[in-house]
Each structure stands twice: as C-alpha cells, then as structure tokens.
C-alpha cells in the first residue's frame, strides 16, 4: 500500500501552542509521526531579563492561558527563595487554594474536550457548565477568570473572607456530586470505555524513558507528583492521594484526571478549614541579592520548572522555564505509532486540552500526486467519529440518555 504524508498544523486546535505535525500513513495506519515545534516562541525568557521582578510576575503569568497561576507561583517561589523572604503562612494557603481551583477548572475543561473529540458532546456541555461554577469562584476571589494576578513577590495580593470561604465550600459540594456522576459514567458506560481503551497507549517503561509528566505519566503508572515529592506552598500541610492508573491509555488519563478532581475538592476543603489568620504579604526589596534558585510546581498538566538567577539588581539575570507540555509532547509519537488516523484527535487532546477557536486546515498530499487535497479539522473530527460509528462505537444513545437523566 502506498504511503500518504499528512501535514497537520502549524495552526491546530488541540494544542495551545501552534505546532506542525507530519503524519505518514499506510492506509489508515500511522507509520510515522514527527513534530516541529516553536511556532509560538515569544521570547519570554529574554523579555524577563529586560523587566523588573514584579513585571515578570505578570509576564510569567501569561506564559499559559490555563496554567497561569502555576507559572506565576513557580516564578515567585524562586525569587522568594533567593531573597530569603519569610512568606506568611496564610499567603501560602491562598496560593494553594487558587492553584487547586485552577486544576479543577483545567481538568473539567479537559473532560469536556475529550468528550467532544470522541463525539460525546453532552459530556462537553455538562462539564463546561460545571466549570463555570469554579470560574465564578476564581472571579470572586481574584477578580478574574484567568490570569488571576493573585501572586506578588512576598505573598498574595488579596485576602479570602469568611463569606467567600463559605461560597467555595458550597461550590465544592456541587462539583463533587457532579464529578462522582462523571466517574460513574466513565466506569459503567461501555461506549466510552470501548472508545478510549487501548487508544494512545504509552507503556510505563516508555513514560519513564521519555520523561512524561503529570496525568499523562500517572495514567501509565508513574507515581510522581511534585506536590507530594517536593512540597511547596501549603502542600506539606494537606493530606491527599496521588492518583495513578495502569491502563496506560486515554481511558486511564480520563480516570486519573477525574480522580484528581476529587482530591482537589478535598485539598480545597482542608485549606479553607485550616487556613491560619495573619498577614498575607511581606515587603521584599525591589533589588534581589545575587543568587539562584530552582522552583518546581505541579501544574494541571504536570511538572512546571523555573530557574531564576539574580545579580543584585532589580532585574533577573536569567529566567528559564520548562512547561509540562514540552515534556509530554515527545510521548505523542510513541502513542500514535502503528495506530489509526481516527485516534489522532483524541490522542493529541489527551495530553493537552487547550483549544483555540480559529479555523484550521489539514492539507492532504497523496503520494505521487502534485495537487493538495484540503481536509478541514472539522472534517477530520467528523471522520474520526464516523469511523468509530461504522466500527460499532456510537455515542448518539448515550448523549440522549444523559440529556434525559439530567433534565
């Protein structure tokens, strides 16, 4: 059978950074998958060197649209370590609180995207409706739905009132009930189990070897979580379980994220219950003494790492960022090797849930033919759903059933 090479990207909706993939097919089987990254390189590390520490808090917050708090926390932790600033406990608790709320909104968003990619759109509608509950809480606490601006060097910028705490606990009860319902669906509905099982397989050995992080690694049985292994903020004071799974596929990644949602609700409750009184910020001089520090943070997608080097001025000498997606993108090639083209959307979406609304095209060049056929992302999406419908996996009934059950 002749081979067909499909370029996907650089504009691609399942990725927060534009990337260019080249997929070599034999029939419908993926023979080879390679990636060219860097299309969204904005020079943020260089830009950090030209700005003051306080400006860099806001700049690092904008590295990612979803893990915004992850990056700003990771950055301020490094700067505070160099400055030797004693951060008030209450500030650390508030950072942890916002961090877990961010994880909840990110994981709920991912569940919806995953549902959409396989044609289970009712799940998308419900999880995104539920996500609004946590978005409202974040807006109430920080004044914004994303890019919260809660961190500053030396602590946090806003306090949590008793009324707000009550609202948060109420929201956690609602979300816990909803999440339990989704877990019930994920573990009982055969359509979903069949569609996600054995798709995007990453063995434990490969996950370790390729340096996978976060839920992608944990769904392959890699028991690593920076929150437990290298505790920061208030994580040493809270009890939680690191959720792992041995399915090694997209189904496992779904179970891990759903399980992590339940753990996050529990962490939020503990934080609210045990939050100490006291100041929320200490004054840190604008000039940071010469030094260096490495800071790690468990972002919703995995380990985020910042390295900061200072030279005694008010601007850093060097800021280095390693975001989790860079570690995970390298596992996608392994996940797709010798798999169906129809699994590509969900496998890519399974490591990274960011979705852009821009129109996107997939060019298809048949071997030996000059002319390029153009396949829109929507067409690839419906092809993937149609393919599985023909192979007996159809979400139409489940969509209807769920609609009815929740009226």
């Amino acid at each position, binding site marked *: 059978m002749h081979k067909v090479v499909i370029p996907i990207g650089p504009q691609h909706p399942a990725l927060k950074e534009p990337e260019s993939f080249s997929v070599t097919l034999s029939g419908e089987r993926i023979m080879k998958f390679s990636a060219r990254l860097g299309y969204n390189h904005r020079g943020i590390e260089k830009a950090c060197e030209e700005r003051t520490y306080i400006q860099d808090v806001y700049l690092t917050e904008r590295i990612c649209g979803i893990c915004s708090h992850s990056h700003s926390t990771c950055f301020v932790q490094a700067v505070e370590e160099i400055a030797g600033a004693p951060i008030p406990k209450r500030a650390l608790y508030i950072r942890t609180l916002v961090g877990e709320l961010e994880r909840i909104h990110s994981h709920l968003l991912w569940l919806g995207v995953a549902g959409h990619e396989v044609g289970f759109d009712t799940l998308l509608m419900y999880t995104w409706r539920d996500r609004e509950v946590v978005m409202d809480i974040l807006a109430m606490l920080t004044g914004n739905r994303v890019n919260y601006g809660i961190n500053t060097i030396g602590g946090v910028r806003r306090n949590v009132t008793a009324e707000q705490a009550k609202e948060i606990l109420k929201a956690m009860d609602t979300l816990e009930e909803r999440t339990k319902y989704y877990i019930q669906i994920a573990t009982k509905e055969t359509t979903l189990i069949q569609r996600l099982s054995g798709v995007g397989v990453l063995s434990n050995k490969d996950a370790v070897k390729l340096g996978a992080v976060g839920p992608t690694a944990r769904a392959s049985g890699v028991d690593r979580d920076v929150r437990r292994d290298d505790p920061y903020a208030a994580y040493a004071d809270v009890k939680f379980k690191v959720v792992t799974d041995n399915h090694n596929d997209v189904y496992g990644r779904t179970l891990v994220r759903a399980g992590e949602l339940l753990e996050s609700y529990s962490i939020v409750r503990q934080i609210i219950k045990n939050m100490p009184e006291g100041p929320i910020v200490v004054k840190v001089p604008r000039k940071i003494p010469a030094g260096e520090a490495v800071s790690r943070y468990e972002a919703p997608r995995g380990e985020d790492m910042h*390295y900061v080097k200072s030279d005694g001025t008010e601007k850093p000498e060097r800021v280095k960022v390693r975001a989790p997606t860079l570690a995970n993108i390298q596992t996608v090639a392994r996940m797709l090797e010798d798999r169906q083209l129809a699994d590509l959307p969900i496998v890519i979406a399974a490591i990274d849930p960011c979705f852009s609304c821009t129109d996107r095209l997939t060019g298809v060049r048949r071997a030996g033919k000059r002319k390029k056929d153009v396949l829109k992302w929507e067409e690839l999406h419906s092809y993937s759903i149609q393919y599985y419908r023909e192979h007996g996996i159809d979400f139409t009934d489940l969509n209807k059933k769920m609609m009815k059950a929740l009226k």
Partner: protein
Amino acid sequence: MTKEESIQSELIKKFGFLEGRTRIQRPRRIFAEVPLDSFKDIFEYAVQKLGFVILSTITGLDEGAALGFIYHVGREDGIMLNIKVKADRVNPVIKTITGYFPAADIYERELMDLLGAKVQGLPEGKRYPLSDDWPPGEYPLRKDWKKEPEKDEVKTNA
C-alpha cells in the same frame, strides 16, 4: 546526616575534586560545579548510582567569558541535583545526554538555537524553537544579542 548530605559526600568520595564545589542550598536542592571534561562521568554516576532518574530540563546561561549549562536532574524523593558546567564561549561544545534521557533532544536543540551551543553526538533533526529562516550566528539568549528595531513597513511579495 540528611539525605542531601549523604549524596554530597558520596559525590565527593567518588570525585575528590568536587570538594568545595558542591552546596546544599536548601532541603532537596543540591548544586554542583563540575569541570567540563569530567561531566560525563559525574552525570552517569548521578543517574545510574545516585538515583537521579528524572530530567527536568537543561538551562543555558551566558556568563560572559563562558557559556554555562545546568542539568537539572531529580530523584523520586524530590531531591534535585543541579549539575553546572562551563564551556568556551567561542567553541561551546557539550556532549549530548540523549543516551540517558531521549527526551533531552528538545532541550539540547533549544540550547543550540538560543545560545549557540554545539552538542556533540546529537543526531540531525528539526531545529527548535526558532524559525527556519532565522539568520545563522544569531543567538538571542546571549547577552550581547540585541533585537533588531521593528520596521514599520510590512514586506510583501509584490
């Protein structure tokens, strides 16, 4: 003796010349300044004997006369060892670590693009992260590199 101190003393026991070149900055953070020609032995020892099996990333630095590289490796118990080497600025040759960590490929390509490192043993591959038409010899993370002022005009093919 804490775990960090025992790692530090094991490093010094095996590589005597590291005496006075390692420091424990805080719990779970060890820094070691390592001569370039013995980097590979020390790195291998850390990965294979001391349990540093997680590669977080490689940081590249412009330190004036030399380029600095920091290999951030971690253990399952959260201890992170930061191995620092210095390479000549004019001919900054470092050895690839993709033999230990295949995922280091992308981090090493980043060092090549942004700092002009020459990575020995890294197979040919797609560059990262700069664009294909980026001018050769321009390394934006070097301190003497300045961004060209933006032109008002938009180039067109016409």
